[in-house]
């Protein structure tokens, strides 16, 4: 498929463990965003990447969260020492450029921290 792909779709982990969430954006899209949606909340911005520019990490809630984007394509969001409040749906989106209204979202990863 040509859409944004995220894996895994569901992840259950124990408190204190590290997790990695993967995002494959649409081929050729230079902008990549991570958002999360906690239960009953809106989409919370985490980080975005645009081409080779330094990422905007202003939305990362703590230093336990980090993200990489290798080769301008695949991105990995890593959460270290997970806490129960990290439980949420983590959504990745890509677009042809930063600010483009047409963000294409993946289906998300449902993270549950027990």
């Amino acid at each position, binding site marked *: 498929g040509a859409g*944004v792909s995220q894996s895994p779709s569901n992840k259950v982990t124990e408190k204190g463990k590290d997790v990695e969430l993967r995002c494959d954006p649409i081929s050729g899209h230079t902008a990549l*965003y991570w*958002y999360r949606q906690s239960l*009953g*909340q*809106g*989409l*919370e*911005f985490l980080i*975005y990447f645009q081409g080779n520019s330094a990422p*905007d990490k*202003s*939305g990362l809630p703590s230093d336990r969260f980090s993200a990489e984007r290798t080769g301008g394509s695949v991105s990995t969001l890593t959460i270290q020492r997970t806490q129960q409040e990290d439980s949420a749906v983590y*959504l990745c*989106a890509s677009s042809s450029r*930063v*600010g483009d*209204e*047409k*963000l*294409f*979202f*993946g*289906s*998300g990863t449902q993270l549950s921290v027990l």
Partner: protein
Amino acid sequence: DQQVKQNSPSLSVQEGRISILNCDYTNSMFDYFLWYKKYPAEGPTFLISISSIKDKNEDGRFTVFLNKSAKHLSLHIVPSQPGDSAVYFCAANRNYGQNFVFGPGTRLSVLP
């Protein structure tokens, strides 16, 4: 501090009637507004947008109205169809280069 608010968590309307979803924002620097629709187990999809230089934008059954002085926008769906049942997110952006700030969403149910 929520910069984008959707004060109605849910809304039910009859098929064929008008659905009106509301959104308020606090940051006067926002100059671009968007609506996204989300079905269960899917990511949000772009629906319609409006720039702050306009007060109305229309696309088929969907119209977005912007009242800058009131920092308020609304999405009108006419006529509403059962397939419109979804969660609708209002989002705002400034300078086309910043991240998008999303509201908490409104769940619309269109009853047959």
